[in-house]
């Protein structure tokens, strides 16, 4: 989403089909465009001046909204990228002079420097296991560091007074107004199209549930870094525009006070919507210009108080509240049409075992949770993993689905050594993991959840929303068996416990995994649901030739479907065999009953 994309006519990338569901938003959009077109005739030069600056700020506010409202990354740092763009204009025009070459250089620098710094900040902020707090803190450090650097730049950066009086574009106020307005419209339209596209839903799913995203094979840190780089470029362009228009740049433009102001505009306007921050940024900027001279202290006080109140009482912001009576702002969901897609053929030879674990151990300090685990499982097998609580069953599952988890030993998935690779790579090797508690995207619809699960198989479009939802046959079976196919537009949060479990299973299956890990798939299900799941699982192994591994306490259920039982006790595999062999063994009776002398039913 560099400048090349920005300059592209956004209307061309929005297909007519994508416009349909949002027809209700159209009047509002047209009013906005009309205001930008006729502005110079209705506003005086004072207002125009304010509006032009407000437009550049609004563009930056949109980038904050995309990062925070849509993706869940609270950032104070977008002002730094804005300031870099402004200083690129100021520095180049001051020291190099204003020429067409200078303009190209400054704009190029505004984008490239912002993107490079964003890449660095992204690397620092987003890594496996990074807490969202940490990323926010880094975003706070960035503007502070940049302002300090500018302050220490002496003559070259103008230090605390900044740069002023450099030659810049000789445009009239009207032309600037149209340029800034066009930029706002272009960025807003582009963001609107992209956020509604299938790829845009990935951001919402990251906000909802990062761990599920990585277990769907989505490289979350990479997506976030990419997004940060893209938004930094946009903020850099807005900053360049501001610097070129105002003819003054000061360190405050990079500071974190502006960074927090951006957040205030977005929060008051309404995070997670595009209109909110846009209107919020423009209105608050205009109001500030008028009121800060009339009642300088009270205005800041009112703004601060309003901000606190909105955060505590109205997390969604004010603009959605105002738009609601007009039926605007409500999310329109289009029904997706289910189609079957053929399963990809297995990449490797059929006789490669689906899972090979060799001498895997897991220690927490001196506590050995797993020891010397050797386990092999083939396609078409349904392995039941049983053992008392605390035997290490779930830990074993973690060790085969995330390379960073085990202490030593090797794990091969479909012939690929997982080394220390993250979960998303294991997923790409053919693993699908269903968690014990339904691990889904709560704010997404059933169809959207399922589409997220197909991300690694078909790359989602950045601009379009697909009408059809293609799933492998066994995922469709799950949906049909549980009647979820009739609820594709329901929001996942509103589903029943059993339906959420089924949805997660369908999502895992949509990955077209070769190995499916299931952690207590029947926990909390009704008898009917249990039978349904049992049927689905047997079909997976026997009809479609997947390798299934399930942890289960319900031995009746295991007896019905498992082809092999593995007994885990105190971190080691104590026995493997058929159900009858295991249930009749004294060893297992000892483990479950505590003593072999008082034989009890193991089940």
């Amino acid at each position, binding site marked *: 989403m560099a400048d090349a994309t920005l300059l592209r006519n956004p209307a061309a990338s929005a297909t007519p089909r994508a416009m349909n569901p949002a027809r209700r938003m159209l009047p509002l959009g047209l009013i906005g465009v009309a205001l930008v077109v006729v502005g110079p005739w209705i506003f005086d030069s004072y207002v125009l001046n304010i509006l032009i600056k407000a437009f550049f700020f609004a563009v930056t506010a949109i980038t904050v909204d995309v990062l925070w409202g849509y993706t869940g990354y*609270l950032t104070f740092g977008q002002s730094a990228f804005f300031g870099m763009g402004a200083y690129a204009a100021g520095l180049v025009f001051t020291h190099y002079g204003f020429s067409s070459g200078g303009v190209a250089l400054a704009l190029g620098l505004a984008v490239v420097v912002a993107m490079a710094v964003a890449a660095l900040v992204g690397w*620092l902020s987003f*890594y496996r*296991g*990074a*807490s*969202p*707090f*940490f990323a*926010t*803190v*880094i975003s*706070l*450090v960035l503007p*502070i*560091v940049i302002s*300090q650097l500018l*302050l*220490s730049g002496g003559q070259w950066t103008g230090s605390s007074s900044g740069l002023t009086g450099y030659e810049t574009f000789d445009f009239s106020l009207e032309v600037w107004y149209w340029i800034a307005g066009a930029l706002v419209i272009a960025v807003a339209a582009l963001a609107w199209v992209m956020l509604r596209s299938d790829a845009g839903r990935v951001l919402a799913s990251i906000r909802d549930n990062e761990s599920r995203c990585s277990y769907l094979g989505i490289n979350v840190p990479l997506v976030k870094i990419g997004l940060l780089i893209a938004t930094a470029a946009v903020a850099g362009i807005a900053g360049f525009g501001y610097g070129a228009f105002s003819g003054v740049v000061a360190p405050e433009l990079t500071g974190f006070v502006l960074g*927090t102001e951006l*957040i*205030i505009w977005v*929060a008051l306007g309404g995070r997670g919507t595009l209109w909110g921050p846009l209107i919020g940024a423009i209105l608050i900027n205009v109001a500030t210009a008028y009121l800060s001279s009339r009642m300088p*202290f*009270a205005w*800041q*006080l009112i*703004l*601060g*108080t309003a*901000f*606190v109140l909105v*955060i*505590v009482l109205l*997390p969604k912001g004010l603009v959605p509240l105002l738009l609601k009576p007009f039926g605007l702002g409500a999310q329109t969901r289009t029904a997706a049409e289910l189609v079957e897609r053929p399963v990809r053929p297995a990449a490797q030879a059929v006789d490669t075992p689906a899972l090979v674990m060799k001498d895997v151990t897991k220690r927490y300090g001196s506590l050995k949770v797993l020891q010397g685990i050797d386990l092999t499982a083939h396609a078409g097998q349904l392995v039941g993993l049983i053992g008392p609580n605390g035997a290490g069953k779930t830990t074993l599952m973690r060790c085969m689905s995330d390379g960073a988890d085990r202490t030593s030993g090797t794990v091969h998935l479909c012939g690929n050594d997982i080394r220390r690779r993250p979960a998303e790579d294991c997923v790409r090797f053919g693993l699908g993991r269903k968690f014990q508690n339904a691990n889904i995207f709560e704010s997404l619809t059933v169809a959207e959840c399922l589409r997220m699960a197909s991300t690694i198989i078909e790359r989602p479009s950045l601009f379009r929303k697909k009408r059809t939802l293609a799933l492998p046959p066994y995922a469709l079976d799950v949906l049909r068996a549980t009647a979820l196919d009739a609820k594709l537009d329901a929001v996942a949060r509103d589903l029943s416990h059993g339906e959420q479990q089924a949805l997660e299973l369908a999502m895992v299956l949509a990955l077209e995994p070769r190995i499916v890990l299931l952690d207590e798939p029947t926990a909390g299900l009704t008898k009917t649901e249990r039978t349904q799941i049992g049927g689905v699982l047997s079909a997976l192994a026997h009809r479609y030739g997947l390798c299934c591994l399930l942890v289960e306490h319900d031995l009746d259920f295991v007896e019905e479907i498992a082809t092999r039982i593995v007994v885990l006790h105190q971190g080691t595999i104590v026995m493997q065999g058929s159900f009858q062999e295991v249930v009749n063994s004294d060893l297992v009776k000892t483990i479950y009953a505590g003593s072999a002398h008082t034989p009890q039913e193991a089940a």
Partner: protein
Amino acid sequence: MVLLLDLLTTASMLFVVTAGLMMIFGVMKIVNFAHGALLTMGGYAAFVVTQLQLSPWLSWPLAFATGVVVGAAVEYFIVRPLYKRPLDAILATWGLGIVIGQLIVMAFGREVKFADTPLQGTWAILGVDYSAYRLLLIPVAFGLCALLSGLLNGTRFGVKTRAVIMNEELASGLGIHSGRIRFITFSLGAGLGTLAGTLITPLSSVDPGMGLPWLVSAFMLVMVSGHSMLSLMLTCLVFGTCQVLVSTYASPVLGGMTLALLAALTLRIRPEGFARG
């Protein structure tokens, strides 16, 4: 020698400023961005005491009391509804910081004020004359560290607090009033914040923005140090040392950034911080 004293006093200042935030972040995992405003309030408490021509020592209890009262109100009205939304708590406390800052501006004006120092002059120590007040901060910081460690590790309140940190649901189930623990901790942390503001005023001027530069440093230190007062002390020593060394030998501007940058890098390499160093 002067350098060594610089190191120690800087670390002490950092600790004093950070301790209040530590109480709040360590226990409640709430990032109190109003901490900067609390520091500023402490500064103005000292200024008020000076205006009233009272003994400067009185500013300490006054600041602490003000902080506790304000903290109690803030906890009750703003922080309590946001326990489940920690990122929003950052924002709400930040907004609160703006509100407090503006109220101070309206009451006292924008210009820089000065407050009396409780302890003036210099002390000769190991052959150098050094600001007596700065030296005083060293025992204050260590005393505070001991006091807070004692409070958290040696008292009934401390045990309950740690129970709430570890597992709030279980603690409530055992009959610990977790809401009250949070309330007390927040008020105490806020009181420590304003007290710190008063303590640092003799070394800086009093103005509406005085708390802000400290906020980020304090925040980074808390992030790095985990949740024990001793490790916080250690972190303050290490990072304070780096800051002073860079300021002395490179440039003060770079010195100002050292702490934030180092902390960010430390956390990138060792996300759990120094806690189990």
